[in-house]
């Protein structure tokens, strides 16, 4: 029987199959953060159940942390309490925590890959839907609810039905200025927000093979925005080179042994997927969203479609856009470059490359938030911070920030924000805020121009 990448990793982790029921799936790594773990710790404590494998859990503080003055006590009492609980729970249960200010601190889906915690062929979970990010390494990684966080604490396993398989192929040559973010926004705009529900998605084709690990992470990150619990890309030399030498990666002969195994993981030729789609890379252009779900995306050069249904109209009313309208020249006062989708070094290189020698538009408030302490450090090492400062931008400290606006980084009511994050839901970036999702290049251009521009015109 020909197997897919997903089958190979999944089948290697099945502890037991229950007749007419789910399977017990073993979890190699469990990542936790302050927002979705406290109730799980509470439940275990209440039931007198110990944490089964504390060594396989890594914690970070990211969702609810300030992005300025991290050395000071957190001002908001509820946030401070949540962070204190994470610290206490980790200490009590012997779990490694990279808390605020630690050199390894950062957004969970940025810090784990850069530390080599994420490795091909693993199963990984986290109480966060963007755990799909780690699939970029050929890892089965998916978001779970807090009850499941408690289950993994208790048994390092989950009870699951094996999902169906889906493959999205993109082949051809990407146009200049088309970034991994555009590729995934394009795919979601074509397939819709629930095409992947019930499926695990593999991305295949030369476009993904030629992408960096950062780019692959951006793509896999947004799998959940088309409903797929996870997205995967076959591990290859790019993957091995990225993992090699990182803090928690296997070393020496162990590494070579692992690579030999990882090389067996790619999908067998002629393996069958339950659903498959093909796209031509040449059809993709820089994308933006105009509505209140990530499937509502268009090429910047296109107009908002004309659809007559109540949900579509409700969405446009919230955004204060008209059917058929072009978003080019739309004035924008807020720009956010950050989030687990686009806060890695490559994203800031793209932004700096565009910004170099230009000045920030006066009307724009821009938040540039690196995904981790390590990314922040690298920005300084590469001199990108000088580019940003000379243009009138300041860099903030790592965290999820305005992606979900749990901290003080909130977009004011009624304002538009061109954002490199992953969700444009109503109020996602602050009550009444209006989010336009885009790549770091489009976000940087918006910050310079103070309005949305057709970036393709500048590039060609």
């Amino acid at each position, binding site marked *: 029987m020909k197997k897919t990448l997903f089958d190979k990793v999944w089948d290697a982790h099945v*502890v037991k199959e*229950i007749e*007419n*029921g*789910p399977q*017990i799936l*073993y979890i190699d790594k469990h990542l936790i953060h302050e*927002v*979705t773990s*406290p*109730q799980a710790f*509470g439940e275990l404590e209440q039931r007198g*159940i110990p944490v*089964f494998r504390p060594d396989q859990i890594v914690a970070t503080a990211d*969702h*609810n942390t300030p992005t300025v003055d991290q050395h000071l006590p957190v001002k*908001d009492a*509820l946030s401070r*309490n*949540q962070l204190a*609980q994470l610290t206490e729970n980790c200490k009590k249960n012997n779990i490694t925590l990279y808390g605020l200010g630690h050199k390894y601190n950062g957004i969970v889906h940025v810090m784990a890959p850069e530390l080599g915690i994420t490795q091909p062929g693993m199963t990984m979970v986290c*109480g*966060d*839907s963007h755990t799909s990010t780690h699939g970029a390494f050929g890892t089965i990684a998916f*978001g*779970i*609810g*807090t*009850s*499941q966080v*408690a*289950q993994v604490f*208790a*048994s*390092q*396993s*989950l*009870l699951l039905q094996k*999902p169906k398989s889906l493959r999205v192929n993109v082949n051809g040559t990407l146009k200049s200025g088309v970034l991994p973010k555009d590729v995934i926004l394009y795919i979601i705009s074509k397939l819709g*927000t*629930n095409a992947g*529900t019930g499926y695990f998605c593999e991305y295949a084709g030369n476009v993904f093979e030629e992408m960096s690990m950062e780019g692959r992470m951006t793509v896999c990150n947004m799998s*959940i925005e088309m*409903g797929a*619990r996870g997205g995967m890309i076959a591990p290859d030399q790019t993957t091995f080179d990225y993992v090699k030498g990182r803090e928690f990666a296997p070393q020496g002969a162990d590494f070579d042994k692992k690579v030999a195994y990882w090389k067996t993981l790619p999908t067998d030729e002629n393996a069958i997927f339950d659903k498959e789609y093909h796209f031509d890379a040449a059809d993709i252009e820089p994308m933006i969203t105009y509505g209140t*779900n990530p499937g509502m995306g268009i090429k910047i050069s296109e107009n908002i479609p004309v659809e007559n249904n*109540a*949900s579509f109209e*409700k969405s446009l009313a919230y955004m204060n856009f008209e059917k058929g309208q072009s978003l080019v020249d739309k004035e924008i006062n807020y720009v956010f470059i950050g989030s687990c989708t686009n806060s890695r070094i490559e994203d800031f290189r793209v932004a700096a490359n565009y910004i170099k020698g230009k000045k920030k538009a006066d009307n724009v408030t821009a938040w540039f938030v690196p995904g981790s302490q390590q990314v922040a450090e690298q920005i300084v090492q590469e001199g990108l911070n000088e580019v940003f400062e000379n243009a009138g931008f300041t860099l903030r400290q790592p965290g999820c920030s305005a992606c*979900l*606006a*749990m901290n003080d980084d909130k977009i004011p*009511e009624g304002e538009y924000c061109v954002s490199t994050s992953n*969700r444009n*839901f*109503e*109020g*996602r970036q602050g*009550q*009444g805020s209006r989010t336009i999702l885009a790549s770091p290049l489009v976000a940087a251009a918006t910050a310079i121009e103070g309005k949305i521009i057709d970036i393709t015109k500048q590039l060609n």
Partner: protein
Amino acid sequence: MDKFVKLSSTAIPLAIENVDTDQIIPARFLKATNRDGFGENLFRDWRFHKDGSENEEFVLNDTKFQGSILVAGDNFGCGSSREHAAWAIHDFGFKVVVSSFFADIFKGNALNNGVLPVQVSPEFLKELFDAIEKDSKTEIQVDLENQQITLLATGASAIFEINPYKKTCLINGYDDIDFLLSNTSEIEAFEKTLS
């Protein structure tokens, strides 16, 4: 976990598609460290204006509609994995959510909290919306044992799918932790096979 066997109730119609978990419970309410009280902020930004006054146009504020069944548009619960969304729905008093499609993580979270997601065809969903719209007192029966949802006034009914294991859990109020812990020795044996 609450048991769920059978329920008859009037329903609240939420005819909006792609209801995401940020609408069910906005992120700013995720700072709590226990599971209680999330119902207060269920659909917060649709139920209340920014000044805290009630949005009379929102269906949950329409006293005509009551009950422990929420009937919602396609692709309910998409977005974030926050189980707070399921807690909020449960805490508000809903025992059942009916839709033509559910997002995966929400569905699992609901089942883990004794809230039954009932997936029906788009046609049957429309029939439910129409019936509730016509008569807000119309009762809907959800029978987990027989996996059947019925509009009591007309007798129109549909069968819904549920994983047999999850069905047993709901009917008996079991949760997955108990089951996983009963398999610890097998999990430990499996670990020994990992290199």
